C-alpha cells in the first residue's frame, strides 16, 4: 500500500504523514500496547485482550475481513472431534486457535469434555514442522498458510474450520483512542486517510484484471508468500471489499454476539488480567452506542463513522 503511492495520495489529501512499519504479529501488538505505534492491524480477540485489557483505550476504525476457513483443526487417522478428549493438541495457547477449538467442541456438545484435552503450547514458527515430523501427534490447531502446509502431509484431514463460525474471527484495523481524539483533529484526519487508502486498495484487489494480479503479487511478496498461496488464503477469507459491507457488519447484532463470546472466552482464560474480576471491567462500545460491560470502563470501541463515510463516498 505504501509502495503503490495510494497511501501517500490519501495522506497528502488530509495533510498527515503516514509511515508503515512491517512487524511480526506478536511484536506489533507489544509495540501498540507500549504506545510506540498509533495504529495496528489485529484480530478482534487480541484487540480486547492485549491493548484494551492493558488499559490502552482502543478504537476499531475498519473491519477488514473475517476468517472463513483460514483457521482449522487438523487431525491424523481420521479421528473425529469426539475422540480428541484425552489426546494431546498442539496449538498456540490463548490465541484464536484455542478459541476456535473450544468453539468447535461447544458447537458439537463436547464442551464438558474440554477438561480432558491436553494442550501443548507450540510456537507458531515450529508448529508445522513439529506436527509433520512427529507422527505420534494426532491433533493440531493453527492458521493459514500453515494449515495448507500441514494438509499436504499424508493422512491429515481437517475436522473443523472457521467457516463453521463465520464472522467470529475478525481482522480489525485499530487506532489508539487518544490519537483519534487529538485536539488538533490530526487523529481523525489520519483515520480518514487510512480508511480512504484502505478502500482504494480493496477496489483494486477485488476487480478482476491484470491490475488485480499485480496488486496481489505485491501483497504476497510483502508477506513473503507466493501468489498462489495468497490467493488460496483469500479464498477462505471473507473480505469486506466494500465499505458498505464492513459498515453493515459493524452495525450488526452479530458483532455483539461475537464479542460476547470472545470476551467470555478471554475472561475465562485470564486473558483480561489475573486481577480483572469480571468481563465487564473491560467494556466494549458498539457503533449504535450500546455497551457490553460497565459504561465507565469502556476500553474497546467499534467506530463505524469512517467505514460509513467511505461507503457514502464522503472521504
Amino acid at each position, binding site marked *: 500500500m505504501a509502495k503503490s503511492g495510494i497511501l501517500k495520495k490519501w495522506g497528502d489529501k488530509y495533510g498527515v504523514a503516514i509511515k508503515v512499519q512491517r512487524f511480526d504479529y506478536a511484536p506489533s501488538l507489544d509495540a501498540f500496547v507500549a504506545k510506540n505505534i498509533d495504529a495496528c492491524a489485529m484480530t478482534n480477540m487480541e484487540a480486547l485482550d*492485549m491493548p484494551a485489557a*492493558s488499559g490502552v483505550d482502543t478504537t476499531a476504525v475498519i473491519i477488514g475481513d473475517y476468517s472463513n476457513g483460514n483457521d482449522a483443526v487438523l487431525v491424523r487417522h481420521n479421528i473425529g472431534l469426539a475422540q480428541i478428549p484425552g489426546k494431546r493438541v498442539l496449538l498456540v495457547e*490463548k490465541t484464536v486457535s484455542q478459541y476456535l477449538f473450544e468453539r468447535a467442541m461447544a458447537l458439537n456438545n463436547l464442551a464438558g469434555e474440554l477438561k480432558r484435552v491436553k494442550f501443548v*503450547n507450540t*510456537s507458531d514458527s515450529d508448529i508445522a*514442522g513439529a506436527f509433520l515430523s*512427529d507422527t505420534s501427534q494426532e491433533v493440531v490447531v493453527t492458521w493459514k498458510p500453515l494449515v495448507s502446509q500441514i494438509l499436504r502431509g499424508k493422512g491429515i484431514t481437517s475436522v473443523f474450520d472457521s467457516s463453521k463460525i463465520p464472522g467470529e474471527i475478525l481482522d480489525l484495523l485499530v487506532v489508539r483512542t487518544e490519537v483519534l481524539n487529538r485536539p488538533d483533529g490530526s487523529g481523525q484526519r489520519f483515520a480518514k486517510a487510512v480508511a480512504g487508502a484502505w478502500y482504494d486498495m480493496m477496489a483494486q484487489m477485488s476487480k478482476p484484471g491484470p491490475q488485480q494480479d499485480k496488486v496481489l503479487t505485491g501483497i504476497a511478496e510483502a508477506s513473503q508468500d507466493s501468489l498462489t498461496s495468497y490467493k488460496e488464503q483469500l479464498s477462505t477469507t471473507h473480505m469486506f471489499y466494500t465499505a458498505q459491507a464492513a459498515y453493515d457488519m459493524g452495525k450488526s447484532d452479530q458483532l455483539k454476539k461475537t464479542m460476547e463470546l470472545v470476551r467470555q472466552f478471554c475472561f475465562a*482464560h485470564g486473558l483480561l488480567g489475573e486481577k480483572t474480576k469480571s468481563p465487564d471491567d473491560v467494556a466494549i462500545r458498539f457503533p449504535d452506542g450500546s455497551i457490553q460491560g460497565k459504561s465507565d470502563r469502556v476500553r474497546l470501541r467499534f467506530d463505524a463513522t469512517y467505514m460509513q463515510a467511505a461507503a457514502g463516498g464522503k472521504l
Partner: protein
Amino acid sequence: MSLLRIHAQPNRATVWMLSWLLFAAGVSSYFWVSRDRHRDNPDDRVMPTIQQMVQGFADATLKPAEDDEVAAAAGQQSLFARIQSSMLWKDTKATGRRFLLSMALLFPAVMLGLHMGMFPHIGAFFLRFVLFFDKIVALSLLPILFIAFGIDELAKVMLIVIGVAPTIILDAFNLTRGVPREQIVKGFTLGAGDFSVTYRIVLKQIWPRVLNSMRLNLKAVMLFLFAGEMIASTDGLAYRIALLRRHMGMDTIIPYVLWVALLLFLVDFGMRTLNRKLHPWFQEA
C-alpha cells in the same frame, strides 16, 4: 587524586557502596518510569508496580495454575500443601527435572573427552566429528530433532545435550592433554596400568576444572532449555513466561525471571562450594 589510579585503595564502605550503585540506579529508574506510566494509565501492564509484582508472585506461589483441576478448596489446605500444588512449584519442578537430567547426561561427555585425550585411537575416531558438531547451531536443526526424538521431554533434553555436550567434550579433551606428560610417565614407571593412569592420575586432576567449565556452561544449558520449552511444552518456567506474554502478564513474568536468576545463582554457588569441598588443593590459576 588517587581515585582512578591503579594503586587506589578504596575502603570497605566505598567498595560496598560502589558495588550496589548500579542496582540502585536500575531499580529506582524502573520504578520511576513505572510510576509515571501508572499515573498515565492505571491499568498499565507493561511495567507493573512493586505491589503488583508481589501480588503476582504471591499468586504464583500459593495458587494452582488455572488449567489444573486441583481440589478447589485451596483455602483449607496448609501453607505447605498450597505451595506444593502451586503454579510456580509445578513449573520449577518440571524445568528442574529437565535441567538435572541434562546435567547428568553431561558426565558421559566428560568421560568421552577424557578417553579421547588419553587414547590416541579414540581421539582420532571422535575428535574431528566433535569439532564439527561443536559449531552446529542446534536450534537450526529443530525439524530433524522432532523426527528423531518427537516433541516431548526427550527432544528438550537432547536439544541441551547436543548444544552443550560438544563444548564439554572438547574442554575435557584439552584439559586431559594439558596434564604434564611427566606425570603419566611417572605413573607408568611406578607400575600403573592404562586405566589407573587415566582414572587415578589424569581424571582426578582435570575434575575440578571440568566442574568449573560445566559451571560456566550453566547459562547455555538454561538458554537451550528455555528455547525448548518455548517451542512446545505443557509445563515449565519458560512455558509459563511464553503464555503470560500473550496477555502482557509482566507482573508475574518479572518475578519469574528473578526466580530463575536466583535458582541459577544457587546452582552455581552450590557447584562452586562442592568443588572447593571436594578439591581443597585446587587453586584457580
